[in-house]
C-alpha cells in the first residue's frame, strides 16, 4: 500500500485531480456534484442525521477541510461537528470556498429525496456512491429495516481502511511515455446566463430496458447512445445559430479507471475521453454519430493509453520547479490552463456513473436515483445520468436560460420510441 505523505501528521496531500479542482474552484465555477435518492417513504430527518453521524467516521476522507499551504493545498481532518442535514434548496451544487465554515460535503432532504453534495476534490462519483449507498443502508437500518452489507455497502462498525484513501494516480503513473494530447477548440454551446448562483435543473426519466433495446438496435451501449444523441442536439443548436464556420462538437466523458487499474480507493480516479464530430466535414446522421462515438470510445479507452495520460498528469505534479511555485501563482496557471485545455476543447460534459445496485432488501425503499453536476465556467448545460432498477435518470443542469439542448435531446428519445417523463426546478 502506498502510504500517504503526511498521514501520521494529521494532514495529507491532494491527488492529481483534486489539485486541479481546488485551483479552479471559484464563484463562477462549481466543482460540486450531487447524488439524490428518492425514497419510497418521506424522509425522517432525525433518523437521517443519526445515520450521517454513524456513517461519517467510517469515511474520514470525506470529513476534511482544504487548507492553503505555501506551495500546495492540503487536506486536514475536520474536527468541527457535523456535517448537518439541511432542508433542500432550489439551486443545488453551490460553489465551495475554502473558508473555515465551508463543508466540502453537504446533506439535504426534501420530502422523499435525500441528497448528498460532494466537492470533486474529495472523490469522484464512484467513490461518493460508496458513501451514499452506505448512508442509505444505515438510514434504513435506523428506520428498522434489515439491510445486509452487500453490493458495495461498507460496514460502518469497521475501522476505516487506509487503502480506501490511497492516491491511485500516483500508484499507476508508471508508463514509459507521458502521453500528450492537444485538443482543438470545440463549439462552446453557451447561452444567456442566469443571475448569479442559479442552477437550472431538468430531469428526464426513461425505462432502462427500453433504452438498452434502442441503444442495442443502433449497435451501441447506453452511454454511447446517449452521448451521440447529446452531440446531435448540440450540432442542431450550432446549425440554428447560423455560424459561418461551424466548430467541432466534443463531449468530455469521465471514465472510471477502477476496472482497468485495480484499487480500492474512494478518491478521484477518473480520466476523460473526448468523442467529437466536426460538422465542417459534412452532415452526420444519428447512426453515423453513434458509430463515431462507439468507435472512438472503444479505441481510446485502453489501459495503456490511459496510463500514459496519468503519467503525464502526475509528472507535472512531481516536477520540482513547478512544486516550488507558490499556491496563488500555481492557481492562476492551473486556472488558465484549465480554461484553455480543460474547457475550450469541450462543448459540454456527459457523465454516466452507471447502475446504482443495492441489496434486494433495500430495493423497495428507493424509487429512483438522481445525479446533478454543478455549474460550468461558461453558461452551458452539463449532462449526467444514473440508473436504478428500470429507471434511467438523465439530468441537464446549468446556469443558462435556454432549454434547446435538452429539448432536442428528449425529443430525439421520444422519436426513437422511448417514453420520457420530464421534471424541472425552473420556475415559470
Amino acid at each position, binding site marked *: 500500500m502506498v502510504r500517504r505523505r503526511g498521514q501520521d501528521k494529521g494532514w495529507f496531500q491532494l491527488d492529481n485531480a483534486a489539485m486541479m479542482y481546488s485551483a479552479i474552484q471559484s*464563484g463562477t465555477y462549481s466543482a460540486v456534484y450531487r447524488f439524490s435518492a428518492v425514497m419510497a417513504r418521506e424522509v425522517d430527518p432525525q433518523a437521517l442525521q443519526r445515520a450521517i453521524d454513524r456513517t461519517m467516521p467510517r469515511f474520514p476522507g470525506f470529513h476534511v477541510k482544504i487548507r492553503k499551504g505555501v506551495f500546495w493545498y492540503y487536506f486536514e481532518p475536520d474536527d468541527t461537528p457535523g456535517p448537518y442535514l439541511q432542508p433542500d*434548496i432550489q439551486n443545488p451544487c453551490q460553489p465551495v470556498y475554502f473558508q473555515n465554515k*465551508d463543508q466540502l460535503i453537504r446533506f439535504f432532504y426534501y420530502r422523499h429525496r435525500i441528497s448528498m453534495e460532494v466537492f470533486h476534490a474529495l472523490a469522484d462519483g464512484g467513490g461518493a456512491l460508496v458513501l451514499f449507498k452506505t448512508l442509505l443502508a444505515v438510514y434504513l437500518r435506523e428506520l428498522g429495516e434489515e439491510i445486509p452489507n452487500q453490493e458495495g455497502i461498507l460496514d460502518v462498525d469497521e475501522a476505516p481502511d487506509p487503502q480506501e484513501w490511497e492516491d491511485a494516480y500516483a500508484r499507476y503513473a508508471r508508463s514509459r511515455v507521458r502521453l500528450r494530447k492537444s485538443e482543438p477548440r470545440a463549439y462552446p454551446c453557451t447561452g444567456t446566463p442566469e443571475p*448569479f448562483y442559479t442552477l437550472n435543473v431538468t430531469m428526464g426519466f426513461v425505462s432502462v430496458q427500453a433504452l438498452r433495446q434502442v441503444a442495442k438496435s443502433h449497435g451501441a451501449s447506453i452511454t454511447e447512445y446517449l452521448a451521440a444523441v447529446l452531440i446531435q442536439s448540440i450540432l442542431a443548436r450550432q446549425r440554428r445559430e447560423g455560424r459561418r464556420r461551424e466548430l467541432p462538437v466534443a463531449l468530455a466523458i469521465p471514465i472510471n479507471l477502477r476496472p482497468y487499474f485495480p484499487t480500492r480507493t474512494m478518491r478521484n480516479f477518473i480520466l476523460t475521453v473526448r468523442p467529437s464530430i466536426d460538422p465542417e466535414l459534412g452532415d452526420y446522421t444519428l447512426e453515423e454519430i453513434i458509430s463515431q462515438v462507439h468507435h472512438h470510445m472503444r479505441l481510446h479507452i485502453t489501459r495503456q493509453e490511459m496510463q500514459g495520460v496519468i503519467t503525464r498528469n502526475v509528472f507535472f505534479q512531481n516536477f520540482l520547479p513547478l512544486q516550488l511555485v507558490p499556491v496563488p501563482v500555481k492557481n492562476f496557471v492551473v486556472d488558465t490552463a484549465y480554461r484553455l485545455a480543460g474547457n475550450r476543447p469541450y462543448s459540454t460534459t456527459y457523465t454516466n456513473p452507471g447502475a446504482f445496485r443495492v441489496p434486494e432488501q433495500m430495493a423497495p425503499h428507493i424509487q429512483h436515483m438522481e445525479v446533478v453536476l454543478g455549474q460550468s465556467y461558461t453558461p452551458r448545460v452539463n449532462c449526467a445520468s444514473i440508473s436504478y432498477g428500470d429507471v434511467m435518470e438523465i439530468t441537464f443542469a446549468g446556469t443558462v436560460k435556454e432549454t434547446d439542448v435538452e*429539448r432536442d435531446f*428528449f425529443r430525439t428519445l421520444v422519436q426513437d420510441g422511448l417514453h420520457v417523463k*420530464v421534471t424541472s426546478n425552473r420556475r415559470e
Partner: protein
Amino acid sequence: MSYCVNCGVELDKDAARCPLCQTPVVNPVCPVDTTIPPNFPVERREVEPVNRREAAVLLSAVYGVVSLCCVVLNLLFWWRGMPWSAIVAGACAMLWVWTVLPLLLRSVHSIFLVGLDLLAVAGFLWVISMAVDGGSWLGRLALPIWWGCSVVLLFLWYILPLRSILSRCMLVLGSCVVLMLWLELCIDLFLGGYQPMWSLVVAVVGVTLMAPLLIIRYRPDLRREVRRRFHF
C-alpha cells in the same frame, strides 16, 4: 397525466408549462394540480462569497506603512529640498483606489470603478504638481489630457463589449484619432498656438483604415466577398 404536444414528454401533474418548450398545459381531462407540493423545493439559498476584507486590510496596511515611512524619512532625514514623500504617498493612494476598492465594492458596475481609478490619477497629478510647484502645467496641460483620455476610455469601456469585432476595431481606431487630435491641441495650446500637424497624419491614416472597415461592416455582400478572397 399530461404530455407536451410539442415534445411528446410526460409532464409533472403540477406543471403548468412544458419545462422544455414552455408550451402551456391545457388538458380538460387532467387539469394542472396546484395542490400537490412541487417536485423541487422553492427556497433559494446562496453560499456566502469569499470575504476579501482581509486582503483589503493587508493591502491598505502595506500602502499605509510605505507612505508613513517615506513621510518620516522625508521630514527627519532626507529632505532634498522638496516634499518627495507626498509623491510616494499619492502613488500609494492611487494604488489603493486601483487595488483595494475593487475588493470592497464587488457589487458595483465596473465602469464606476474605472471612473474612480481615473479620478485617482487626476488626484495623483495634482499631488505631483503641488510637490514640484508645477501648478502651471497642471491646469493647462495635464488635466486636459487626462480629461480627454478619461472620456475616451470610459466610452470604450462602455461600448466595446456590446459590439462586433469589426465595430470594435472601428471604435478603437476612431477613439485613437480623436485622442491624438485632442493631445496635439492641448500640447500646442500649452506651448503657444495651435498648429496641427502630426495628429492630422494620424487622423488621415486612422480614417483611411476605418473607411474600408465601415464599408465592409455595412455591406454584407462585400463582407462575404472579402472572406472568400482571403479564405477566412
